[in-house]
């Protein structure tokens, strides 16, 4: 009887070996696949059960915080005043992932970032729950609120970006229509799913951060780049430029008129300053042709247009001049049409660069990185990205922009502050006559010692529709935002 018993023993050993072998396969060889499988809730649950770091505004106003809950996700992400700051904070959903800053700085907020190494080690020793680090943004909470209110009260689809010219700090980044990230952070899966489906179905794209994730034809605001290139080539604000009310694009029958067929100067020539102030299309189209595509492209690049992988740390879609394949295209590029596309952020950087004496500062949203105990770990230092203009050229362009502001209609002018600005009314779409134009306003103030540079765009002219211009639609919003910033202290 002992022989079969021994064989049974061997069979038992074989069974255990099989189990061990299979356990090796599951837990060692396939372990990573299982761990990273999207159906595996463990990783996301771990993130939720850890106290996620806060996102606060530059003055300490909490924008995103956590609230202890009694369900198994332990912490609920909350956004005070969600829709106002949503383009910046983004959302944090355990079904749809994260967006905005929540995504860009996820490692820091969830505590796995290397910069938090020391505090993690001390947590390990003291046995406290690991916490995420916090972010102090450069966003000015009051200004952001003002910008959002301006857009919201007009009921428009658009965005306002405000930058501090001498540092590159982004002071405000509002986008409408907006959304409430609290709904996406809900611990109720149904709420998340319904909200997400509604956002996806909404043609107004509420979750789109228009300031950085969308680019638009810049229209006349691009004349600033052309003017800067011309100044660099030795022109002054008094240099004569083309003043005809309408020209025909070379080699075609297409005409290119000034807005409302306005005459600039004496109808033959005008000064560069007048051409910019009156936004003469013919003058800048011809000027662009004189400069040539390469010089235009180089100057644009110095202003950051064409930069591919900009992160602030939100990723920014690239701005571009397009291919400029022939001379008519070059003419149209000169007035910011054809294939030129810029993000509202890029236009704000353009204004900020001129305001900062031609020095382009790297735009950024993160002011300080804070440890879980709110000790500062690191601080973003202003970073000079490029010297786009000579200081005297910047001053000349500033004066031209002051003239432009004085020539711009539209309400909301500020009494005690000199603004330097440029408006734009950008045609777009297949049928430009029937499509409502985008209204632009880029500006900085006070002109003598700039403290804020902004770009405003109102998609499709807002309420004014076909008759919209940058001056009538976008300028009042921009001026109100500047007023809120300068008057708010």
């Amino acid at each position, binding site marked *: 009887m002992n022989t079969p018993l021994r064989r049974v023993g061997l069979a038992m050993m074989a069974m255990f070996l099989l189990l061990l072998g299979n356990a090796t396969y599951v837990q060692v060889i396939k*372990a*990573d696949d299982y761990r990273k499988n999207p159906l595996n809730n463990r990783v996301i649950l771990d993130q939720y059960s850890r106290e996620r770091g806060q996102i606060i505004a530059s003055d300490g106003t909490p924008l995103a915080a956590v609230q202890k809950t009694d369900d198994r996700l332990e912490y609920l992400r909350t956004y005070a005043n969600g829709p106002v700051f949503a383009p910046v904070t983004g959302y944090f959903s355990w079904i749809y992932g994260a967006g905005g800053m929540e995504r860009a700085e996820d490692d820091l907020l969830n505590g796995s970032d290397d910069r938090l190494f020391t505090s993690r080690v001390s947590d390990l020793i003291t046995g406290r729950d690991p916490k995420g680090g916090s972010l102090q943004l450069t966003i000015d909470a009051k200004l952001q609120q003002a910008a959002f209110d301006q857009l919201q009260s007009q009921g428009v689809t658009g965005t306002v970006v405000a930058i501090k010219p001498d540092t590159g700090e982004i002071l405000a980044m509002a986008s409408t229509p907006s959304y409430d990230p609290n709904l996406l952070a809900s611990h109720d899966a149904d709420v998340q799913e319904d909200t997400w489906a509604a956002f996806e179905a909404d043609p107004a794209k509420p979750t789109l951060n228009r300031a950085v994730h969308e680019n638009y034809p810049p229209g006349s605001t691009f004349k600033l780049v052309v003017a800067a290139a011309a100044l660099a080539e030795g022109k002054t604000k008094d240099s004569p430029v083309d003043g005809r009310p309408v020209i025909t694009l070379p080699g075609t029958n297409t005409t290119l008129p000034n807005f409302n067929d306005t005459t600039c100067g004496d109808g033959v020539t005008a000064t560069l300053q007048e051409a910019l102030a009156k936004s003469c299309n013919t003058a800048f189209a011809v000027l662009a042709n004189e400069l040539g595509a390469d010089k235009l492209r180089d100057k644009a690049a110095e202003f950051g247009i064409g930069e591919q992988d900009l992160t602030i740390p939100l990723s920014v879609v690239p701005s571009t001049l397009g291919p400029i394949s022939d001379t008519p295209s070059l003419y149209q590029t000169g007035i910011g049409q054809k294939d030129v596309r810029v993000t509202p952020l890029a236009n704000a950087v353009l204004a900020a660069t001129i305001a900062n004496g031609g020095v382009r500062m790297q735009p950024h949203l993160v002011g300080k990185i804070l440890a879980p105990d709110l000790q500062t770990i690191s601080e973003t230092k202003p970073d000079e990205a490029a010297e786009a203009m000579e200081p005297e050229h910047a001053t000349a362009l500033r004066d031209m922009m002051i003239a432009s502001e004085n020539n711009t209609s539209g309400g909301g002018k500020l009494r005690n502050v000199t603004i330097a600005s440029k408006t734009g009314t950008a045609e777009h779409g297949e049928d430009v006559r029937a499509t409502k134009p985008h209204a632009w306003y880029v500006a900085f103030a006070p002109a003598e010692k700039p403290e804020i540079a902004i770009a405003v765009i109102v998609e499709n002219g807002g309420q004014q529709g076909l008759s919209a211009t940058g001056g009538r639609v976008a300028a009042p919003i921009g001026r109100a935002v500047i007023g809120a910033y300068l008057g708010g202290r």
Partner: protein
Amino acid sequence: MLAFAATLVTSALILVEANQEQELTMRIVWLGLAYLGVLTVVHLAVRKWAPYADPVIMPCVALLNGLGLVMIYRIDLAMADVKFADGSTWSPAAPKQVLWTAIALVLFCTALKVLSDHRTLARYGYTFGLLGLVALVLPGVLPSFIAPEINGAKIWLSFGAFSIQPGEFAKILLMVFFAAFLVSKRDLFTIAGRRVLGLDLPRARDLGPLIAAWAVGVSIMVLQKDLGSSLLFFGIVLVLLYVATERAAWVVLGVVMFCVGAFAAWKLFRHVQVRVQNWLDPFIDPYGTGHQILESLFGLGTGGLFGAGLGGGRPDEIPEANTDFITAVIGEELGFVGLSAVLLIYTVLALRGLRSALAVRDTFGKLLGGGLAFAMAFQIFIVVGGVTKLIPMTGITAPFLSYGGSSLLANYILAALLLRISDAARAPKATPKPRPQQPAIADQFTVMVERPK
């Protein structure tokens, strides 16, 4: 070794507390000491009533049981904040399991004391067989108010506050019966029938017991929808037959019958098809029927080589965490290393049992010991194999680890029987009668032996 087991269990408990509540109290020390105290009492009982018993079996059992208690407690902590769909909350299982452990240990000691020789069991073989059969089939045929269907299986008898799984006891009762039956009728089964393909087939009329076992296995599956138990039961009978007759033909026949039965079941029953499908590809229905096995695999995978640490995993994600899937929780929190260690403890336990069976002198003891040891190993194979997707998942508990009074009681009886057999195997033979002393050589008569010429 018992003290070592107690230390391990206490440190495991400390880790759980540390990871879950960040506060250590003196309570743990008392719990550890209490555990050690209980173990000492059991140890003394074993010394007294089975002084020659294998010294490794009891510490293995104690370690597994203690680890099981810690894991069940740990799962209680995890489930404490979970609210079920019907609004009810989790009722802690650990205190009940501690109570069951106490009862089981008392039963264990009683069994050791009352049963001074395992051969007495053989005398009541038929009685046990009948009892076992009744216990096995009872929940399947009784109306559902007393035998409710839980998680699709109809294997419980419910008496108000507590419920038992008679199948767990039936397993041992029937094993005793089969061992006794086979020992008495052993010669019958070795008579050769026809020879086919180099195998001596048994005579058709001797197939009775095998067919009966097969029928019982099938009926468990049909009436109670308990695949694991039917597989376990059939496997045990097959091994007992093989050991008793020393004929591989039984095994071949049995495997063929098993394949036929399994294939038919797969064709006929929806719940069997679902199990097989989830085994082949659990991702087909990740939120439905594949959920259990997927969560188990995710847990094991997330645990990886060294695990998430005791108290650091997410057993609330795994369904049935404290019964069928308790090894998955161990795999997640202690990693591959911990799971292997647990498997090794089981291996040691089963092999020690088998060694006793090899060493014991009576055939009944050999059969019973071999059967008990194999049952332990096979049960682990079925449950861990199911959890790690080696074989289709069949709901069955892990001996000593899983939550469940019946399982614990039955397995402690099993351990008592193994100890009894090993005691008999290792006991020195009854001291032989002293031989009359031979007188010293000098006192012998001297005899002249003539030299051969």
